[in-house]
């Protein structure tokens, strides 16, 4: 009978230096339950006095078996599970999955649905960065930004609730479009956010960006070079803070992003402060995209009319026999996908979120693998902490912006 234990010191001996084995340096356990690790992450820190020699992350405490569970459900029903992977960005996960399914079965998406997807994805990016800002401030000792950003997030969660009924796990984006059209109050609520947010972001910058304590704790801490980013496959704000202007929304645009005009903020320092600045600038760019998408939003249907893949609206069920049959078949059996595999990537607030989906001719995915940015980015933790003080590891973990649901799946 296994006792489900986590790795102990003996098994890690080959990763720790000789000084740890002889007792000259101390190995501490920053355990799965800790106020400053963003979720259930365990880090084994090797300390020489106050200086860090090595930090070994131990993950898997939130492994939910989503990939195996998706293999047992049809394409539509397994979308519900995808929300809960990167729980700071549920709409982004849905979007990546739906884009992969649409590519696999070659399904079209009407332009109004694409615009709604872009607006919601950018608002989710905004809410994820707001929470990141709040918890980073909290970890470094600044409690006020946390309360302010949570207040802002309430306004965004109200919009998600307006569209779909749920605050966080919406499953609003479905293959072929979105679940239903946005209600009338949507435009007013989004315009309200566009009017009030820029001043709020200025407020957070006033609190933190020139704060001497914040600068001392984040400047030149957690350095990573561009070469290391390439070796480890790091994308997202961590890569952009080292000077590379790479964003999948510009490089390989999806869902109509090529129509909108926005910048990709970069910094050259590669440290915690650079990543902070990149994310704050990204928040402003997200507002720009939402503004343009709202103004340019076309009319028309929000779902593909291909009834083999998209269920008909409920109003048709009472009138049309074909609609009833399609509805029945789609919800009991699901739609078949061809044999073959696709890999589709979107830009999540953490980096490149990719979905590898393989179909086998049946209604259930044969294999669905999520290439998550937190898994790749967390590998660089040992590189970033060498030679720093113990108090810096909190700032470094916060700046990588990991979400353990994303990392462990």
């Amino acid at each position, binding site marked *: 009978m296994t*006792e489900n234990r986590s790795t102990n010191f003996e098994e890690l001996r080959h990763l720790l230096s000789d000084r740890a084995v002889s007792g000259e340096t101390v190995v501490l356990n920053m355990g799965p339950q800790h106020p400053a690790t963003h*979720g259930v992450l365990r880090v084994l820190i090797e300390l020489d006095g106050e200086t860090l020699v090595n930090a070994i992350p131990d993950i898997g405490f939130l492994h939910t078996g989503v990939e195996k569970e998706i293999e047992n459900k049809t394409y539509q029903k397994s979308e519900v599970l995808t929300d809960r992977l990167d*729980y700071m960005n549920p709409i982004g996960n849905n979007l990546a999955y739906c884009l992969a399914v649409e590519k696999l079965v070659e399904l079209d998406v009407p332009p109004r649905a694409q615009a709604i997807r872009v607006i919601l994805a950018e608002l989710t990016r905004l809410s994820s960065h707001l929470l990141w800002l709040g918890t980073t401030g909290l970890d470094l000792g600044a409690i006020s930004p946390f309360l302010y950003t949570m*207040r802002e997030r309430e306004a965004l969660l109200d919009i998600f609730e307006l569209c779909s009924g749920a605050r*966080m796990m919406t499953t609003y984006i479905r293959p072929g479009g979105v679940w239903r059209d946005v209600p009338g109050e949507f435009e007013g609520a989004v315009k309200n956010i566009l009017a009030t947010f820029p001043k709020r972001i200025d407020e957070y910058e006033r609190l933190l960006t020139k704060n001497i304590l914040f600068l001392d704790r984040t400047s030149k801490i957690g350095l990573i070079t561009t070469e290391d980013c390439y070796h480890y496959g790091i994308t997202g704000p961590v890569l952009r803070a080292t000077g590379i202007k790479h964003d999948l929304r510009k490089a390989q645009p999806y869902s109509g992003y090529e129509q909108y005009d926005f910048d990709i903020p970069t910094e050259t320092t590669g440290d915690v402060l650079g990543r902070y600045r990149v994310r704050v600038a990204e928040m402003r760019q997200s507002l720009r995209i939402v503004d343009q998408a709202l103004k340019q939003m076309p009319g028309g249907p929000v779902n593909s009319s291909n009834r083999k893949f998209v269920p008909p609206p409920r109003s048709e069920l009472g009138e049309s026999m074909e609609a009833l049959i399609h509805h029945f078949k789609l919800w009991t059996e699901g739609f078949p996908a061809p044999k073959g595999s696709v890999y589709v990537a979107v830009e999540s607030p953490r980096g490149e979120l990719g979905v590898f989906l393989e179909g086998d001719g049946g209604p259930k995915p044969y294999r669905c693998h999520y290439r998550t940015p937190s898994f790749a980015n967390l590998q660089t933790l040992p590189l970033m902490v060498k030679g720093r003080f113990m108090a810096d590891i909190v700032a470094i973990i916060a700046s990588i912006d990991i979400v353990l649901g994303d990392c462990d799946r």
Partner: protein
Amino acid sequence: MGIEQKAGNLGIVTTTLEDVVNWSRYNSMWPMLFGLACCAIEMMSTQASSYDLSRFGMELNRASPRQADLMFVAGRVTRKMAPVLRQLYDQMPAPKWVIAMGDCASCGGVFNNYAVVQGVDEIVPVDVYVAGCPPRPEALIHGVMALHEKVRHEKLAKWA
């Protein structure tokens, strides 16, 4: 009775020991930070300004289990995390209460596979279950108030 008529303005209140102890316990429960997954974000929202948990006495979230008396199990408990959870529960000093927040902690939720424990009551005894995926902050507050009701009616024989 008589003493109240004579000493009413001196600021003396008579009550039972049970009432006083229970009142002090439920009005200042300190939660332990045990946010695991998505429900932790809603727990943080409940703690923040819009739905303030500190009006229920839960201003401080203690990271150390030795200093906490309420554990919100917020999120899915996996098999790797289960021994850690039990160890933390054992480290909490009595009196302690557990609120299973969310569907995953109550019964396994959306997930039913090799990796997720189907309900945290397989590991620790639970006092209140709050349903939702994730539960709205108002639902969590309702669960907290239900726990307060439960503690208010605890009997002397149980804890003395």
